[in-house]
């Protein structure tokens, strides 16, 4: 009786601390799912701004899956350390009303188009910040994916260097928009959602 009680008690303790594990395809879907609290949406006037928090495992998985959707565990373990020291986000800017590229929609003529494209390609990085606890982090890595007006959205990939001491608070991404007229955008990611991200099954 005594041993049974101890066994049940240990089982409860172990199951509480256990991180959920998901098949790598399910893991990818989990990260991209709006319900996970890692893919946040903000709609202002005609624009929909979607920001996806991308953990190191997610980015390493993206690098390790081939065209046949086969995962290479070796590639994964090599890629993972490269993503450990930064917070990564993908921001998508979409025009809600028109099925047009948002830059195209916002610009009246070619000069305006060129101006917005230049801002998005080179200067928007300066208007991005991440508030992690008491630290305000600069965007250290930025890439605007120019799709040459072919898609109804624009994607930006960005990274912020993690502070030396681990942050155990919510993360707030701030984008001080200068071209779409939507103003300062803030999107908060709850610490609880970040801490409870499942682990992908690799083998």
């Amino acid at each position, binding site marked *: 009786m005594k041993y049974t009680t101890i066994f049940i008690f240990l089982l409860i303790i172990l199951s509480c601390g256990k991180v959920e594990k998901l098949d790598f395809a399910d893991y990818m879907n989990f990260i991209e799912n709006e319900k996970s*609290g890692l893919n*946040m949406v*903000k*709609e*202002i*006037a005609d624009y929909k701004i979607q920001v996806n928090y991308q953990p190191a495992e997610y980015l390493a998985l993206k690098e390790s899956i081939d065209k046949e959707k086969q995962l290479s565990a070796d590639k994964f373990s090599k890629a993972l350390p490269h993503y450990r020291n930064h917070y990564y986000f993908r921001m998508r800017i979409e025009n809600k009303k028109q099925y047009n590229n948002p830059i195209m929609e916002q610009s009246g003529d070619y000069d305006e188009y060129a101006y917005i494209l230049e801002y998005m390609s080179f200067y928007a990085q300066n208007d991005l910040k991440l508030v992690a606890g008491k630290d305000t982090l600069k965007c250290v890595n930025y890439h605007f994916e120019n799709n040459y007006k072919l898609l109804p959205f624009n994607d930006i990939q960005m990274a912020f260097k993690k502070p030396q001491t681990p942050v155990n608070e919510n993360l*707030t*991404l701030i984008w001080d*928009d200068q071209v779409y*007229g*939507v*103003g*300062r*955008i*803030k*999107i*908060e990611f*709850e610490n609880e959602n970040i801490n409870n991200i499942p682990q992908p099954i690799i083998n």
Partner: protein
Amino acid sequence: MKILNYLSFVLALAGVVVAAWLYVSQPKSAYVELDKVFDAFELKKELEADLEKIGKIKLGQVDSLKLVMESMQRDMSASGKKDSETIKKYQQEAYEVAYKKQQVEENIEILKQEYNDRIWKQLNQYLRDYGHENKYEFLFGASGSGSIMYAKKENNMTDEVIIYVNKRYQGKK
């Protein structure tokens, strides 16, 4: 007698149902004091502070040019140089400083307008979302211009809306 009792019970029940339905189907409406919401909106406070900072820097640059002008004037008085060329140069400089000051003020005004547009764009969106989430048929904006002449205080949702719009602005769910 039993049937009569039964009928009166059914009628009373129907009455309650109709009254409840009428109560529920009444269009739900409220109003907010827009000036208060605008002033308490975090984005407005932040952009106002930014604008003040920009204004101080830009006008500070113009003021430093004014100091140069004043020293020019002092030099002119001290040296007694009051030939037409020196006066013309001084006047030219004075004109340029005044022109720059005017330009800076105009630019600040344009920026202020731009910031106001951004604030209203977000505020309008959050007010729409508030109305939608709380199932309002109408959400009126009282701005003191006479668009709403009278409303009961209990329909004033200003304080609740201020909390809501600031929460939304901070990016919280």
